[in-house]
Structure formats: structure tokens, C-alpha cells
């Protein structure tokens, strides 16, 4: 692996920077992990066979991305990726509020996928320039896979928006319901100043948020009319709902049934 002057190995980071990097990694990983589990619920019950395959494949991608991110985190904190994924209490998860909602109907999932994929793309373009070389490489690889996810999300948003009145109403209702929580993907991180100073996160969250809003607001307002002004909140990654607690119980059931088992 080549290392340019601006790219430093994690061992050169001081304690504060390592802590901040860990916070960044877990926020992205938990987002990918939780949306992957919600979307995996469509396997077998999507509105058509092609979507069974597509949603399952996308969910598998997201969980794979989470695995790779948890492994980076485990390396940084001398932990274990499986422990991080399946051994934490629900309250220790740091996913954005957008991912607190249950799967809902198909239009609801389409709206969430669109909001998430568009925000994730903005975030990945920043992470691909991170000074933490393994994160930059992983984000670069993720961007290539996410191209397919974005195509899928864009296609479905367009299909529902231009389809029947019922589909359009359901989509608009879902966007309105999720709009404020979607902002929380860009919730400020505790160690953000350090992250930006060290180049671990090349742009602050508020700048990424502005860039994302500039892209999605004009598209979504064609569907729902004017959307309220909305900003990320400090606790945007710390809220928990009964829906998420239910999901957490689901995805930890097998790991919890035989702690420490190897497969």
C-alpha cells in the first residue's frame, strides 16, 4: 500500500483522533447495517419477483459494507467485528433517526431508500478522500457498488411519482414522514472538529448536509410540494424507537442464543 504525505496510518493518530474516527466509523457502519436488515425483510414478500431479488441483493451489499466498516473499527479499537455488530445493546447503536422506522409499505421503503442512498452518496464522496487510507479505499469501493443502488432508488422514485394517484400519494406521505429524520444522517459528531482537522472527514457534516439538500430538495418538492426547513440535530443518532428495539431483538437472536459460538 502506498502512503502519500497526507495519508497516515491510524497508529499515528492521538487518542482524541482515534476516538473521533471510531465514532465516525460506527455511525456509517450502523446506518448500513440497520438499513440492510430492514430491507432484507422484503425477501420473499416484495411486490414482484424481480424486486425480491433486487432488494435482497441490495440488503446483502449494505450488510457487507457494514461488516467491512466494523472490521476497520475492530482493528482500530482492538475489538471484534461480530461483537460490535451483534453484541451491543440497542442503546449503543448510532444509526441515524431515518433508520428507526419499521419497513412500512413498498412506497415507504422506496422513499427511505431514495433519501438514504442520495445522502450516502454525498457522504461516501467525502469519505473516499479521508486521510485514513483504509477508510478511503473502502469508501471508493463502496461508491462503485452504490452506483447500482442509486439507479434502483432513482428508478423507483420516478416510477411511483409518475404512476397512479395512489402510488404518488403514498410516496409523498412517506417523504413527508421521513424528511426530518433523514436530515439526521448528517447529525454532528462529537469529535467532528478533530475529524475535519485531521482530514479523517474532509468536510464537516453541515457542508455535506447542504450539498445533499441542494440535490434532493428540488427533486422531492416536485412530488410533495414545499418541504419544511430542516437541519440535523445533536441527538440525531441517539434516538431509539420501539421499532428499532424490535429489529435489534430480531438480529441478535441467533448470536445471543449461543454466545461465543463459532460457525
Amino acid at each position, binding site marked *: *500500500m502506498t502512503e502519500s504525505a497526507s495519508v497516515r496510518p491510524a497508529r499515528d493518530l492521538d487518542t482524541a483522533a482515534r476516538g473521533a474516527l471510531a465514532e465516525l466509523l460506527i455511525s456509517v457502519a450502523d446506518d448500513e447495517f440497520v438499513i440492510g436488515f430492514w430491507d432484507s425483510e422484503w425477501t420473499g414478500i416484495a411486490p414482484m419477483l*424481480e424486486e425480491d*431479488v*433486487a432488494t*435482497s*441483493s*441490495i440488503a*446483502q*451489499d*449494505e*450488510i*457487507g*459494507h457494514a*461488516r*467491512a466498516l466494523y472490521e476497520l473499527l475492530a482493528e482500530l479499537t482492538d475489538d471484534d467485528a461480530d461483537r460490535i455488530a451483534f453484541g451491543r445493546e440497542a442503546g449503543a447503536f448510532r444509526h441515524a433517526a431515518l433508520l428507526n422506522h419499521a419497513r412500512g409499505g413498498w412506497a415507504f421503503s422506496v422513499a427511505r431508500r431514495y433519501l438514504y442512498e442520495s445522502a450516502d452518496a454525498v457522504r461516501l464522496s467525502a469519505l473516499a478522500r479521508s486521510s485514513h*487510507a*483504509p477508510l478511503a*479505499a*473502502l469508501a*471508493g*469501493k*463502496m*461508491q*462503485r*457498488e452504490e*452506483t*447500482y443502488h442509486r*439507479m*434502483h432508488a432513482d428508478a423507483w422514485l420516478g416510477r411511483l411519482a409518475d404512476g397512479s394517484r395512489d402510488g404518488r400519494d403514498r410516496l409523498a406521505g412517506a417523504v413527508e414522514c421521513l424528511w426530518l429524520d433523514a436530515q439526521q444522517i448528517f447529525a454532528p459528531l462529537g469529535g467532528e472538529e478533530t475529524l475535519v482537522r485531521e482530514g479523517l472527514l474532509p468536510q464537516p457534516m453541515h457542508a455535506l448536509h447542504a450539498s445533499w439538500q441542494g440535490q434532493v430538495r428540488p427533486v422531492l418538492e416536485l412530488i410533495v410540494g414545499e418541504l419544511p426547513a430542516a437541519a440535523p440535530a445533536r441527538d440525531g443518532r441517539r434516538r431509539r424507537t420501539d421499532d428499532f428495539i424490535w429489529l435489534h431483538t430480531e438480529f441478535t437472536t441467533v448470536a445471543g442464543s449461543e454466545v461465543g459460538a463459532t460457525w
Partner: protein
Amino acid sequence: MVSAPAIDAREELIWSELAKIPDPEIPAINLVDLGVIGDVRFEADRLTVELLPTFIGCPALAIMQEQIIERLGLLEMADTVEVKVSFDPPWTSERITPTGRERLRLSGFAPPVMAVIEGLDELAVLPVAECPFCGSRSTTLENPFGPTLCRAIYHCATCRQPFEQFKRV
């Protein structure tokens, strides 16, 4: 990088052993032709093989790792054989060798289209695939998501066969 002739011979042997390991999901192609082997290096008694996943969430990764360790272990050239998953450089479709592309085609998979477009946007991932059965380019994408993460589903209008394409990524 050590380039003593003795090391070269060892590395050559390792690459030829790696070329005997079939891809777990598409056994027609081996790991070297698939382009997932990034680098092979010796450090003291440790042999490290860099594995570049086609897709990050590929469930066959662990199987590939086990098979590499097992096969190279038999050579007894190093005390430890380690397989390191890496995304630097990222695996891209261009890493499949010409032989690999041909092996894919012969087993009924359209190899990824080599687009002239730089980067990876919609135009780059959606060009027309060539039917591996009849060679027709009169094909349509049925689903960019297929039975595994790395495969897309197409239909050929000429021979009326569905077929899979190794996805461009």
C-alpha cells in the same frame, strides 16, 4: 521488494497454485483469472496474499481465504500463510484476464462489458451485454441484481435465452 531469483521462483509457484483454485460461486474461472489476487509477498517466514473482493459483501470470501491458506500451506514455503482482504486497489471488472473472460463466456456468463466511459455511472454499468450463447447484441437487461451480488440478469431476443452477466463494477 525483494527480487532475488530464488524469490521469483517461489512467487511463480505460488501464482500457479493460486490459478488452480476455482471461484466458489463460478467454478469455471480461477481466482487469478478473476483478478482477485492483488499481491503475493514474503516477509521472513510469513507469506501474505492480498485478496481483492469483487463485491464487499461477497459471502464466498471466507471460502476463498480458507482455500488459499490450505493450498499454499501444502507447499510448506512459509510458517504462516495469511490472506489479507484489501480494497486498495479496488477490484474492478477490468481485472478479469482475457482468458477469464473467455472462460466465463464458455460457461454461459456474459463477461462484464468493457465500456469506454471513465468512472462508473449509469452509462458505464448499463451498456448492452453480448449473449454468451449466440453472440447477439439484441439483449435486454431484466434485472441489474441477480442470484449473487456480482451477477445481473439479461434476456436475449435472438435465441430467446435468459442469461447472466458478471456485473461491471
